[in-house]
């Protein structure tokens, strides 16, 4: 009875912890192992070295996927951050309709990326969407066919992604703006510092942690992006809009190439770790001090 009383907290936490060990760390280990084998349709556990990684980096499709991740990641994170910050600053100017506007800017975050992709796919449809709308206004030569253009299609993913996530960044930044010490701002106003300087010199620098959070969340979203591409372009035209996530899925479930799926998943994880681990580490460190 005494023993039980003392160990109840551990017993309560145990199942979740064991699940994490097994289904997170164990599974990562399994995938890592398989990424060093010749597994095809079925897993094969004989280690053969880095052959899968060599195949991966020799694959033009993977090259496209990595390139796309870079282009998409940089633009998606950059534009969403910029737009989010801008909207947050705009909304911070004692806007009478702030509540309504905030609701409008943020609602895409409640949608499934499949819904977002479906909507934008329709709007970007060259024959019936925005293109024909603008032509209908009299601009007969207007052309907007990015979604079917292999060179431009990835930018449509950026558009839809920014549409979905920028409101969320706005909410983060707005909360950050509001948490800046009011006395500092009053002191700056008393000193006669103009509003735009108050923002650039005082408020925005003090929001560094929020920039970091937004960056982490957005990069995490970018690397995991899968649904949006599937719904918007299906990875096409051809594999022009493939991302590592869609590459991995295609290898795992339609090509029956488990080795390639595992190695591409491992690369994805390493990219995430390269971003998240330093962040988590600094967070945990900061909390201990």
């Amino acid at each position, binding site marked *: 009875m005494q023993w039980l009383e003392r160990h109840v907290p551990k017993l309560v936490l145990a199942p979740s*912890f064991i699940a994490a060990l097994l289904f997170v760390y164990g599974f990562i280990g399994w995938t890592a192992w398989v990424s060093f084998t010749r597994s095809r349709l079925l897993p094969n556990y004989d280690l053969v070295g880095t052959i899968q990684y060599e195949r991966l980096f020799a694959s033009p499709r993977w090259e496209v996927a990595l390139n796309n991740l870079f282009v998409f990641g940089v633009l998606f994170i950059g534009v969403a951050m910029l737009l989010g910050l801008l909207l947050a600053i705009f909304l*911070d100017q004692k806007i009478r309709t702030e509540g309504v506007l905030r609701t409008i800017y943020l*609602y895409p975050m409640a949608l499934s990326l499949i819904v977002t992709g479906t*909507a934008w796919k329709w709007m970007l449809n060259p024959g019936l969407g925005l293109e024909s709308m603008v032509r209908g206004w009299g601009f007969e030569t207007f052309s907007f066919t990015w979604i079917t253009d292999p060179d431009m299609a990835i930018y449509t993913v950026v558009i839809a992604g920014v549409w979905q996530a920028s409101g969320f960044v706005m*909410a983060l930044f707005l909360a950050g703006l509001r948490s800046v010490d009011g006395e500092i701002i009053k002191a700056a106003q008393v000193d006669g510092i103009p509003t735009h300087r108050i923002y650039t010199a005082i408020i925005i620098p003090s929001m560094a942690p929020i920039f970091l959070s937004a960056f982490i969340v957005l990069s995490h979203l970018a690397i995991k992006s899968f*649904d949006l591409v599937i719904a918007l372009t299906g990875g096409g035209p051809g594999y022009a809009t493939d991302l590592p996530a869609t590459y*991995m899925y295609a290898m795992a479930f339609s090509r029956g190439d488990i080795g390639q799926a595992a190695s*591409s*998943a491992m690369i994805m994880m390493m990219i995430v770790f390269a971003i998240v681990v330093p962040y988590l580490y600094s967070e945990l460190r900061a909390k201990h001090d």
Partner: protein
Amino acid sequence: MTDTSYAPPTQSRGLKIALRWGLYLMLGVFAVWYLLPLFVMLTTSLKSLEEIRTGSLIALPREVTFDAWRTAWSGACTGIQCEGLQPYFWNSVMLAVPAVMISTVLGAMNGYVVAQWQFRGANIIFALMLFGCFIPFQVVLLPMARTLGILNIAGSIPGLIFVHVVYGIGFTTLFFRNYYVTIPAELTKAAKIDGAGFFRIFWSIFLPLSLPIIVVTVIWQFTQIWNDFLFGVSFSQAGTQPITVALNNIVNSTTGVKAYNVDMAAAIIAALPTLLVYVVAGKYFIRGLTAGSVKG
């Protein structure tokens, strides 16, 4: 609220008003850009195919028809079956409700332990669990597919529930932990001296305080699970697919004439539950979003 509306004395009144108007104009333009897809989805879903082909994207329907909605709900084809979204909608409900409940309860208990019953190594265990929130799920897809097969729940709704619970616990634990650490440890101490044990303290003291965080967690988990596509498409089979997978299948179905109005109606149906939650409990939704990211 910080007051940053400072106007230097040199700025003329006229300029100030012009700036104000410019500000509202910009905010209005952005509002339009965020609302446009929803507006287009809605109007398209109420038009006939004929009108879609001839009219403008943003024109209001000349003649409102709910045919597309009816088809999307009960007649649209997802591959070979043509039952509409209806069965998949209920799949998602039957998947989301238990998965949300189980992961919330587990998160509450875990968070309670980590925040109030610290033992040696509890923080490390918490960090290890939290880490599971950050992995790209691609890295667990293959072994999970095999594991579900071994457990004999592959391609089933219980299998999907299992997956969502396993990978949802990290976040739910984080939410409750961050909430419960703000409750003074003295409360637990006082209750211990009063003779209450682990579960009694949770039930009598912590649970009655937890309504806000329960709402945040339930909304977060519901949104995540309802909107999930990756697990749904990887671990379901014909008949057990969640609504996001079915929607994608309808949109990409190649049989027959492309019915954009049905696609849009289907998309709205798939989005409706989470949109509704957002409209009804937006405050908690935002709190979940920011808590899930800032506190990481």
